[in-house]
């Protein structure tokens, strides 16, 4: 009844945003790197959510019928899921399909195949691996938000 299997996790939607705009969803499989990026973004004035993506947690709800609350209400998405695996590409495909108006910054591998290139067509790209500073600068550039404006806590 209280199983914590990955199958059970796959049926649950992540929690919605608790913080105000501007909001950036960071998809990163590595916890420490995700935290470092989140810290950089927070000090640049963004509320953040970090999601490890589908790694180890079954199918991402973003790619399923339930949808994903953090992605739905994000002002910008930073996607750094690697994309060697089909599940990661499925997430990226779902992002492009469900939220075409949400700015998407993808940390993309240099050796992309044709399918990946087509998938990234029109998205903003950073060559992987990107540093936290590069990601924060790119987010600022995409959102038009500057550090001088201070935290957007409205």
């Amino acid at each position, binding site marked *: 009844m209280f199983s914590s299997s990955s199958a059970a996790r796959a049926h649950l939607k992540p929690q919605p945003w608790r913080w*105000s705009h501007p909001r950036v969803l960071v998809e990163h499989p590595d916890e420490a790197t995700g935290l470092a990026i989140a810290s950089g973004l927070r000090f640049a004035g963004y509320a953040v959510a970090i999601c490890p993506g589908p790694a180890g947690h079954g199918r991402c709800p973003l790619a399923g019928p339930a949808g994903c609350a953090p992605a739905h209400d994000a002002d910008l998405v930073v996607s750094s899921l690697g994309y060697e695996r089909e599940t990661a590409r499925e997430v990226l495909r779902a992002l492009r399909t469900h939220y075409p108006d949400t700015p998407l910054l993808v940390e993309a591998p240099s050796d992309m195949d044709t399918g990946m290139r087509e998938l990234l067509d029109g998205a903003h790209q950073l060559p992987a691996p990107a540093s936290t500073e590069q990601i924060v600068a790119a987010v600022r550039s995409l959102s038009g938000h500057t550090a001088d404006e201070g935290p957007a806590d409205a």
Partner: protein
Amino acid sequence: MRSPFQSEQEAFRSVMLAMLALIAVVLAAVLGPTWLAPVVLAVVLGAVAVRVAQVRMRKLRGLELPVKMAPAHLGSASERRVLVVANDTLSEEALLSELERLASVPHTHVLLLVPALISPGARLTGAVDGLLDQARLRLKTALDRVGHDLVVGGGISDADPLEAVEDAFATFVPDEVIVSTGWERAANGLEPQLAGLVRERFAVPVRHLVFEPGSVTQEPDKDTEARYRHEFGEAAARKFGLKALAGAGILAAVLLSVVAVVQSSERDEARAASQATAAQTAGLPPIAKVVDLSVIPEYKRGPEGEKHDAFTTTDFTVRAGQPQQLRIDNTDTVPHSITAPEAGVKIVVIPGTHTYTLLVKQPGRFLWFCSFVCDEWAMQHPGYMSGYISAI
């Protein structure tokens, strides 16, 4: 007060479901048998209880996808805000030293949060003041030691520790969280797995300082943290399992009690109705099994002095719904009748002696008359060829 809903849609959905449940209960009460409303109510309450348990378990065991969140940094870029969560370890020298060290770092603000750890039992009984005082005293002692000024602030909370941390994220907006606990949970201490729960939910660095009484502070390795989470999950599952069983038992007991009360009430009503009928019947005059009478031409003298045709008995008392036998000797050469349209009675009395059945279904007093043309005056006057049937 904390809203139990995570979004407006969820609140709207909950209101709609509550209305549907209410409608179902009302319809069951109005249209169904007496026992149906309590059963529907029990089903609704059971469904609510299961849903609440599911949500609570998901929260406790971290079944949601591990999306961490944090608000934007508050203050200038050089400022750093540290939230320290502690209760029973606040007297530890190592923790106090760590607080002093943090407070001495330039541009660092520290908030010392002391959850009062009020158990559900204490909330129910209202015994929260002692726990709040205890938390307040621990906080005061710690602040007296490290010095409370603009750099170090403190607060106690009567909320669940995790909710207290969430509240602190909304007001203090920390850039780092330090959770201080013992290796094992003390009677009035924070759960060691609190650090893991905070780490799962918030996108800021979380340090877990663990104390062994009298020893220096340590930070547990990943395996130990994982063990804390696992043990906590198992304990939470056991606790909720027991609560669910107790809840189901209480619900079943309440339901059975309600059904028993309803059935008892119905039995009482039926008994009372039966007794009332018996009493009513007992109070009635006895009625003969068969009533003997005759129809005789020119039998009875009228007020004008002339003789008229007449039934020898013209007033009949019967029990409503019960047949009454009439043995009638019609001495005339033509048929007569006992006709009472309002009572649904029409008995044709042929010449000779025959037995007839008089049946009136509803109580009342009904006029009858002979519908065959005979003595015209007598047909219009009770006591002659007319009379009354009293059904009781």
